[in-house]
């Protein structure tokens, strides 16, 4: 009797599902899917992997075919693009989605956008696009509104619906990063905007074509809305061609496998991705509470230095990352206590935060599973509404969202790494990563009137942090695109015609110190040449503050600073065939100043709002390395010797920080380490530690007095004030920690 009832229920459910699949609108399907997940805890209510278990080889073959179609689409599409950002660095990515917008699988590339596009598709579905403007075969949709689904205006997404026998069976989508997004200032990550209305040309989940053809009016509007119309146009075609190639591939697979199989497969593969994610958390982490706060300084170079910037308020934003890992594999990410959104370009939308969480977890924890929205569904998150990580202000600017996002998520890396360490998987530990900033941006005119953009994307190769068993990776990582590449200078110069390089090289003494060192910073030196006018800016977070720290005794890498030499005599030096600088080196003994004459300027603050350069003006840029791991005094002296050989550190620094004493044997061209002197030097440093370190209680009282007396600079006070106002929970904990009265406020 019981069996009969069960069978009847199963039959009814199957019947309902069959009817639903055919007759539901996309919106009904989305609601149905979300309800099923809420009720059952499983994606699409899938408790058993029927297709996978019946024929696992077929299941893997279909997955392989889909993945191949996506990677193939990306490889073909990037050859349509002309922009070095897309063509050479590979700043594009494609993904395949369910009819409701959940990602199934993806290509290689800038995978941070796989989840943000999911939100873009769901936005269209939730807003009844099937009724108006309609979702039909051959339609083309586009979005770069970060508030809907994206990180910032320069990331343009195209989505194309896939129909089979009249039924919507999915979406193919792709994203590219544009060198210019029509903002109030040239560049891809403009630093000036204070509201959405300065962020540039925003396409709000728009239908931009039908019958596989982009509307002429959209195309004309777009190419007039950016400073780099050729790149925009060709990137648009690249994305569309990729989407069409995927659509073709998916239809072929459906014809081979049958639509019933395909529609079942896409549900199972996402649920499998979710379950693998939960299993990985249980496999590699230790349950508990992890915390890693970061702060984000926003401090522009002052107007007094003669640049063309607007006066700004200094801001320090709080990003108190907390992760709760439960024994059943659930992972909860929270930013309770985060600072408010601001009239600045560093706000980050909730979809961007979700995308970033997904991309990092995909790299750190779920990389050998099914990288799709299943892993997104396995993780819970809280981005406080009204904070800079989930603004509720409809006018908020997002043009430089990465500035907040990257600093914040270094905390995630440190939290997970503590889990890996405790679990014994020390090979997975990473202290953090370098912020991908300080690329040159702007634009100018050559003497013949030709416009050229500045949008160098060498930021795609900064440092990866030290691990528990190895040093950090020098100039070889970007958290948003695992395929790191800085690109050839010659390629960038073919785009940025009036701003050639004098050099690109490692910046000594900047790598985060530790038993395992972080990656080294590296630097660019560029000169304005043959220009009628040139507007340039650089913005690296930090300067007044480190944006992250090392792990278990490791130190952060050096902070940024800003330097330039205006009105240099480089032309004379070249004419006279004298040595010229290829970098700055030690800013306190600048190579610029040693080899050239001109108006040298240097400032502690790392970000500029832009300034006009003339021929001969030289701008220095400083790319991030990363943080170290472990006590530097425990660094193997053979590794320090290699640091000296590779010019990562100077002999003065290795003595000062690592307690290693060495000398250079010119005859044999080798560094010789004096082991006895090193042991003695290290003991001296330990003695200094012993004599200088104070009891924690004394330190605590010092800090408490600072808080009670509010003896803080305005940006710090504001940060505490905002966190306490926005989060009573954070305020309560803060007051409890210092034993402050209930009515205490900043």
């Amino acid at each position: 009797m019981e069996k009969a009832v069960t069978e009847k229920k199963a039959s009814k459910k199957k019947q309902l599902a069959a009817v639903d699949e055919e007759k539901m609108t996309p919106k009904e399907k989305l609601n149905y899917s979300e309800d099923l997940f809420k009720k059952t805890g499983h994606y699409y209510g899938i408790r058993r992997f029927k297709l996978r278990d019946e024929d696992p080889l077929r299941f893997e073959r279909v997955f392989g075919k889909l993945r191949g179609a996506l990677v193939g689409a990306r490889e073909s599409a990037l050859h349509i693009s002309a922009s070095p950002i897309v063509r050479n660095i590979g700043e594009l990515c494609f993904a395949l989605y369910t009819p409701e917008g959940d990602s199934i699988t993806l290509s290689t590339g800038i995978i941070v956008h796989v989840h943000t596009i999911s939100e873009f598709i769901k936005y269209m579905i939730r807003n009844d696009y099937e009724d108006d403007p309609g979702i039909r075969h051959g339609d083309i949709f586009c979005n770069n509104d970060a508030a809907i689904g994206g990180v910032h205006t320069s990331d343009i997404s195209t989505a194309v619906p896939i129909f089979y026998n009249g039924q919507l069976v999915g979406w193919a989508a792709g994203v590219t990063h544009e060198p210019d997004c029509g903002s109030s200032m040239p560049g891809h990550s403009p630093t000036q905007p204070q509201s959405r209305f300065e962020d540039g040309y925003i396409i709000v989940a728009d239908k931009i074509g039908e019958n596989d053809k982009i509307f002429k009016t959209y195309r004309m509007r777009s190419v007039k809305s950016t400073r780099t119309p050729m790149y925009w146009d060709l990137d648009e075609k690249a994305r569309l061609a990729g989407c069409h190639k995927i659509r073709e591939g998916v239809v072929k697979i459906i014809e081979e496998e049958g639509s019933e199989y395909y529609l079942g497969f896409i549900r199972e593969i996402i649920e499998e991705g979710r379950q693998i994610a939960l299993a990985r958390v249980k496999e590699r982490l230790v349950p508990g509470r992890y915390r890693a706060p970061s702060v984000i300084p926003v401090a522009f170079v002052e107007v007094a230095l003669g640049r063309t910037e607007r006066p700004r308020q200094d801001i320090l934003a709080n990003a108190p990352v907390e992760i709760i890992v439960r024994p059943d594999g659930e992972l909860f990410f929270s930013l309770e206590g985060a600072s408010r959104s601001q009239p600045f370009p560093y706000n980050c939308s909730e979809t961007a935060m979700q995308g970033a969480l997904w991309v990092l977890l995909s790299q750190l924890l779920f990389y050998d599973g099914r990288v799709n929205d299943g892993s997104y569904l396995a993780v819970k998150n809280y981005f406080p509404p009204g904070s800079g990580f989930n603004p509720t202000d409809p006018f908020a600017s997002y043009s430089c969202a990465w500035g907040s996002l990257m600093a914040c998520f270094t905390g995630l890396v440190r939290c997970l790494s503590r889990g890996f360490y405790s679990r014994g998987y020390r090979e997975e530990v990473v202290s953090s990563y370098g912020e991908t900033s300080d690329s040159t941006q702007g634009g100018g005119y050559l003497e013949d009137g030709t416009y050229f953009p500045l949008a160098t994307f060498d930021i795609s190769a900064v440092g990866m942090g030290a691990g528990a068993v190895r040093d950090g990776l020098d100039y070889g990582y970007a958290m948003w695109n695992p395929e790191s590449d800085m690109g050839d200078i010659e390629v960038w110069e073919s785009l940025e015609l009036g701003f050639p390089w004098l050099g690109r090289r490692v910046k000594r003494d900047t790598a985060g110190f530790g038993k395992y060192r972080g990656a080294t910073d590296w630097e660019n030196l560029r000169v304005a040449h043959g220009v009628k006018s040139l507007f340039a800016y650089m913005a690296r977070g930090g300067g007044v503050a480190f944006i992250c720290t090392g792990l278990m005794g490791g130190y952060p890498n050096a902070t940024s600073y800003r330097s330039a030499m205006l009105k240099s005599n480089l032309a004379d030096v070249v004419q006279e065939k004298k040595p010229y600088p290829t970098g700055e080196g030690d800013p306190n003994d600048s190579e610029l100043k040693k080899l050239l004459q001109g108006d040298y300027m240097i400032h502690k603050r790392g970000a500029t709002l832009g300034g006009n350069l003339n021929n001969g003006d030289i701008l220095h840029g400083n790319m991030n390395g990363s943080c170290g791991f472990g006590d530097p005094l425990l660094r193997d002296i053979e590794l320090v010797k290699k640091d000296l050989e590779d010019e990562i550190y100077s002999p003065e620094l290795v003595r000062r920080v690592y307690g290693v004493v060495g000398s250079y044997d010119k005859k044999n061209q080798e560094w010789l380490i004096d082991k006895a002197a090193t042991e003695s030097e290290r003991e001296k440093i330990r003695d200094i530690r012993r004599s200088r370190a104070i009891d924690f209680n004394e330190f605590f009282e010092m800090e408490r007095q600072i808080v009670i007396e509010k003896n803080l600079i305005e940006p710090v006070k504001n940060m505490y004030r905002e966190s306490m106002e926005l989060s009573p929970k954070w305020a309560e904990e803060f007051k409890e920690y210092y034993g402050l009265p209930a009515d205490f406020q900043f």
Partner: protein
Amino acid sequence: MPTYDKKTIADLIDGKLEWSALKRIISDHKDADRFDKVVAILQERVPWKEKILLPLAEHLYVVQKGKERIVKAECGYEFGDYRQNWKHKSKVVVRNTPELLEEMYRHWEHSDPGWQEMREFYCPGCYTLLEVEVLPPGYPVNFDFLPDLEGFYREILKKPLPES
């Protein structure tokens, strides 16, 4: 599912594996017995007898000491109950002036002490540097990791946690 011999795991802990061997371990599935093997190796190395329940960080362990579970350093220094932040029993150096910061970093390449201070937490037993925090003045000291030992042993390791 791979498994590694004691020497391989010991070399991994000591950072002595060649890149090719390390890469294989990173790329392969995880060895399910890693936790037990790592703890066994570390237990042999520490100069004290208390049972290691969890390697917490470099130099720090959660151990069973009588009926208590405490954070204990490799050198033998005891920080107390693991549910309290071990930093509260540490020795601290605060680099909150340009002079102190410039012992480590060059001028121009460190934080502005008004915006952020650098806190170094040392082991009172041997003065090993255990953690470096960079936070604004007045920011509460961070409690990096509070493990759920009961949940870990009961539901993941599937073995009993010694009675407290």
